């Protein structure tokens, strides 16, 4: 029984990371309509850059984390202004746009990997690796911190979206870009805001997950895939939806890993996604925030 609870908590922790990555993916998608395949690399930056700075310059952890987050934000703005904005002005369709983000993802991986010879990096233990006990249940400290951070960030995102003017502007350019422009919302700046928030969330989740996975230049892609699954399974229209999808997925992966063959856990998550897409294309919670045309 206690083992089950421990597994459930591990699943929730993983699920929260997937949910955060899904949330960051959704942020850019809702504001621009872009499927950002470079999102996994923002996650990677959040894990790898602090580690590189700590091991080679012996910086304090907090400073290294800030540098990691700043690097992710700069990359996101670079992506926006070198690729997304020009393509949006040219009215590019979804295919070249998504391929462009693939190319940008290669650039980030190449830049970070070229300067760190593509190896894995030592993870930063931001909390003591010793788990604590709650009654007879053993809980890893990382999982507790991840779950807390995720709840705070998701709530913050909800407040931003629904209780502030900035959030109103974000939702406006998502649902009706032309209308938003005609009432004087400066699209480009609001999109920048979406990119910055999204990069921050992604990089932070990368930093948090680093001790639990093998941190390295190629760590982004599997996490991105799980983030996709979280966002699509939950639904792309609401702040808490990716979290729901993520926790569902995290529990699935954790339980299959604990009581079945862990080799099949990735396959299972992909299977779940295919199933949900075919049965409920708009996700479990139902709404799509952005009106997407068929062409």
């Amino acid at each position: 029984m206690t083992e089950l609870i421990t597994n459930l908590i591990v699943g929730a922790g993983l699920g929260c990371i997937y949910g955060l990555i899904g949330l960051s993916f959704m942020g850019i998608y809702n504001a621009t309509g872009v499927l950002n395949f470079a999102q996994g690399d923002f996650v990677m930056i959040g894990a790898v850059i602090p580690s590189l700075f700590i091991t080679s310059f012996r910086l304090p952890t907090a400073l290294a984390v800030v540098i990691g987050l700043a690097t992710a934000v700069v990359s996101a703005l670079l992506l926006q202004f070198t690729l997304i904005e020009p393509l949006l002005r040219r009215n590019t369709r979804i295919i070249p746009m998504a391929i462009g983000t693939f190319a940008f993802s290669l650039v980030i991986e190449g830049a970070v990997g070229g300067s760190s010879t593509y190896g894995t990096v030592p993870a930063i233990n931001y909390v003591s690796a010793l788990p604590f006990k709650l009654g007879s249940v053993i809980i890893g400290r990382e999982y507790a911190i991840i779950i807390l951070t995720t709840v705070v960030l998701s709530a913050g995102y909800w407040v931003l979206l629904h209780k502030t003017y900035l959030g109103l502007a974000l939702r406006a350019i998502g649902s009706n870009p032309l209308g938003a422009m005609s009432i004087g919302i400066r699209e480009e700046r609001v999109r920048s805001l979406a990119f910055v928030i999204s990069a921050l969330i992604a990089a932070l989740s990368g930093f948090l997950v680093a001790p639990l996975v093998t941190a390295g230049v190629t760590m982004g892609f599997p996490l991105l895939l799980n983030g996709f699954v979280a966002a699509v399974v939950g639904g792309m229209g609401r702040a808490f939806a990716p979290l729901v999808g993520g926790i569902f997925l995290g529990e699935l992966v954790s339980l299959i890993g604990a009581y079945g063959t862990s080799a099949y856990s990735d396959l299972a998550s992909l299977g779940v996604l295919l199933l949900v897409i075919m049965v409920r294309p708009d996700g479990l919670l139902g709404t799509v925030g952005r009106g997407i045309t068929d062409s």
Partner: protein
Amino acid sequence: MADRRIKAQRNLAGVLLGRPPRIALGGAALLAAGTLPLWLNTINLYTAGQAVVFAVLGVGLMVSLGVCRQANFGITPYFAFGAYGAADICVRWHLGAVGALLAVTVVSGIGGYLIGRIVLRLRQFTLALATFVLATAVWEYLEVGFPQSLGGGDNGLVLPTLSVFGYSIFGNAGYYLALASLVVTIAVLAIVMRTRIGRALHALGQDATAAQTSGIDVTHYGALGYAISAAIAATAGALFLYTVGAITPDGFDVGVNVTVLLMVVLGGLSTLAGPVIGAAFIVVLNQKLESALSYSVLIDGLVLLAVVRFLPDGLAGQFVRWADHLRGVLSGEPREPGSDSLDPAAPDPLATGSGG
């Protein structure tokens, strides 16, 4: 009188830069490719073979991605099916290299049609994710779930010695078979694209609603476009097996899937030559960059980023534009870019896409 002179000039320009040079250019490229085994060493010939195989795969993907404008981000399942299927058929039914190739092509086409009927119910964004995830899932399955005896897992499988028309597949026969398949694929597609089916597919890609209004069965032709891609991808898979000789699931991983997408977009979505140029460019670039491994990914990425950003129609599309511009200058009436589709000199349905 003046009309006639302009017409004559236009015809002259047309002869210089229009369709015949396209065939001449293609023929010259084919001749050059055909003589490669005579003067390339084994390693470079292997690279050339890979370029040809990926050109076939890219041309296949182009039908779905470029002509029908489906957000088809997963072609590797059919590529893998072609490779593993051809190996299995060769061993089990002794159909020979060419027979196995044709068999997987037909089966993959039929399977692709059925899968296409299902997945194409999705819209652009979910379609992109679904096809991409399907490709990743198939690769994962090959890694962990596929029977080892059929070549699953990290060991993969090794092709038994085969002969093509009396020549061993491991000599130059594999390369020539791939080259011949590329030529046949392009020729067949060029013809099909001028038939009723091709025009329907093209109309579908331009505007699905308008196509439906004018009586085109959108579901049927959409699935058909997807199926043609699947069939050609299986051909490429069989050729991949023949030219490499041994395959593992890694040959069909996410990286390969993305590379094929990048090739097609790099070359250009609007011409048949595009995927061929894109495949040759990327395969050769990657081989040249292998010595500079630590920065090869970065250079790859920067090149592709530049193409997506600055050349909306890809490399081939850009050549077509320059040729059109030159033709316009020669015939004394420089035209605005984008007026191609109204021009009787460019009736090729594959050449009129905006690449959008």
